[in-house]
């Protein structure tokens, strides 16, 4: 691939909680327009890495550059402007429980733009539909939604300001296989149509095989390798080998190969329930 624009650049990142060092000398690049999957064992600091990049967690040392700007050195106004270019989907959705789905989507619109209510409602309905939710979901409260619908509603909210980068923290965790596959397809469709860059933390091997362009493996407090999946698979390290060559890894690879052949025949497909 030719010279690609770097959206996120992490250099020498160090994160520490008390005596426990989570990251040490961690380097990572995320390029424009790609879907980067981040994998790692429980407690390897995947979520902490995400929080460091979006500025929720101040690193002990190192530099994090987002769109070429050092995240920790921004003024409040610059930070807010930068945050508006990032959409974040938290693990459990983090929808505001006292607001309906449509109101949740309208929160950032209301806060950052001076728009008439009717237009905001139109845009909110559009985002909700883009996230693959039925139109009547907008009037519902988060407590009335199923797990998969909550993820979609949270995705709609993270898309509200048309971000350039989307951060997803385990988007398919807790979804049934059908829901998870549909969510994967949705992310792929959105990336293609909205030109998003996606930073995706996942445990889901199927997700890795079906939608990720590159995979970053987090272990030993740093990124061991960040490359295309076939190179990562061949990477010689015990944890990586066990992860990808274990029974689940092989099954996911097989499934992806089969469905890849199928979709090659039927053309671009984006199943949505």
């Amino acid at each position, binding site marked *: 691939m030719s010279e690609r624009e770097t959206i996120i650049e992490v250099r020498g990142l160090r994160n520490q909680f008390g005596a426990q060092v989570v990251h040490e000398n961690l380097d990572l690049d995320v390029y424009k327009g790609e879907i980067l999957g981040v994998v790692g064992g429980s407690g390897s600091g995947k979520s902490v890495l995400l929080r460091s990049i979006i500025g929720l967690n101040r690193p002990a040392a190192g530099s994090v550059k987002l769109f070429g700007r050092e995240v920790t050195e921004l003024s409040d106004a610059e930070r807010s402007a930068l945050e508006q270019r990032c959409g974040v989907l938290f693990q459990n959705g983090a929808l505001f429980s006292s607001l309906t789905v449509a109101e949740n989507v309208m929160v950032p619109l209301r806060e950052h*733009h001076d728009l*008439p209510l009717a237009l905001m409602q139109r*845009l909110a309905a*559009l985002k909700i539909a883009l996230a693959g939710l039925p139109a009547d979901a907008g009037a519902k409260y988060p407590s009335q939604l199923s797990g998969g619908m909550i993820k979609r509603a949270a995705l709609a909210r993270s898309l509200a300001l*048309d971000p350039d980068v989307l951060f997803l923290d385990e988007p398919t965790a807790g979804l049934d296989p059908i829901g998870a596959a549909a969510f994967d397809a949705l992310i792929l*469709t959105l990336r*293609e*149509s909205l030109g998003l860059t996606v930073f995706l933390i996942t445990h889901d091997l199927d997700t890795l095989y079906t939608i990720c362009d590159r995979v970053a493996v987090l272990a030993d407090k740093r990124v061991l390798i960040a490359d295309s999946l076939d190179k990562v698979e061949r990477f010689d390290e015990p944890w990586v080998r066990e992860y990808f060559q274990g029974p689940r890894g092989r099954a996911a690879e097989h499934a992806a190969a089969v469905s890849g052949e199928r979709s090659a025949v039927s053309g671009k497909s984006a199943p949505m329930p």
Partner: protein
Amino acid sequence: MATQGTLTLDAGGRIVAAGDWTLASAAALGRRVDEIKRRGGKGAVDASGISRLDTAGAEFLLDLAGDAREGITGLDDARRALIEAVAKAQSSATAKPPPRTPGIVLLVARTGRAVETIWDDAVALVGFIGLMLATLVRVLPNPRRWRVTSLFFHIEQTGLDAVPIVALLSFLVGAVVAFLGATVLRDFGASVFTVELVGYSFLREFGVLLTAILIAGRSGSAFTAQLGSMKSREEIDAIRTLGMDPVEVLVLPRALALLLSMPLLTFIAMIAGIFGGALVCIFSLDISPGMFLQRFHDTAQARHFWVGMSKAPLFAFLIAAIGCLEGFKVSGSAESVGEHTTSSVVQSIFVVIMIDALAAIFFMKLDL
């Protein structure tokens, strides 16, 4: 680098879009789109001058183009894909707004619902008290099923730990009552009656009432929050599937603990309140400690003490019942835990004061 999105209708009736068609210029674009549409401009749109495009801009372009989205020209592949995605989403996003209900209907409906809730709560509380008593009768003859550890843990939590706050507040209220009494009674030259005032009020009413209100806020709410969070994490269901009875395991130890600690706390509250009153008498009314004790000994009667004390177990039982019942009513979310904790405190304080008022009339009629 950001430029405002523009929309113009050129001489040939062609609609020309240019600049940033993004959320940032959405408000202005929205007005322009409506204006152009009013002037009859609809259909072919030249979008080649657009520098940036997002979903909001795509929405406007589609709005202008109407059904014929092939009419939008000057788009590259990426933008065409964006337009297609938005168009596809729009087709499924035709939400009809829910019908509006008139305000008066909502008011009546809400009133009705509130009345129904009060009735349901009362029925549920009576049922739950019955359940607690039935379980107690079942467990009592069977010492193996007494949950002694749990009982003592809750006595510590609801009784021992509450001593400082109960004592301090009663002391302060005792002092305030004495001050009030002294101020009014001095005008009649009867300031020595302050001793009776403090004695009567704390033995009969304030000792037990202050304790009950404090315990309702402190322990009743804690019961609701504890059981509520257990309910929302399915721990109560787990207890049931393991063949145990949640009322026996969770409710009885709490209720019995409160039943035992409340009279003791009430006693402490009475002493502290009278002590507070005594200090005021001694320091600002020139009543010596010996005189206070003499006067108190002469006027206070044991029946006042028993009238006050007899209410303590009743209040304790009701606070425990309401606290635990509200905990069981929690459903799912953390929000619900908060809601029911509030409701538990409000209900128990209401019930305590209401029963206290009824008891005052009852004891008065009995000449006690």
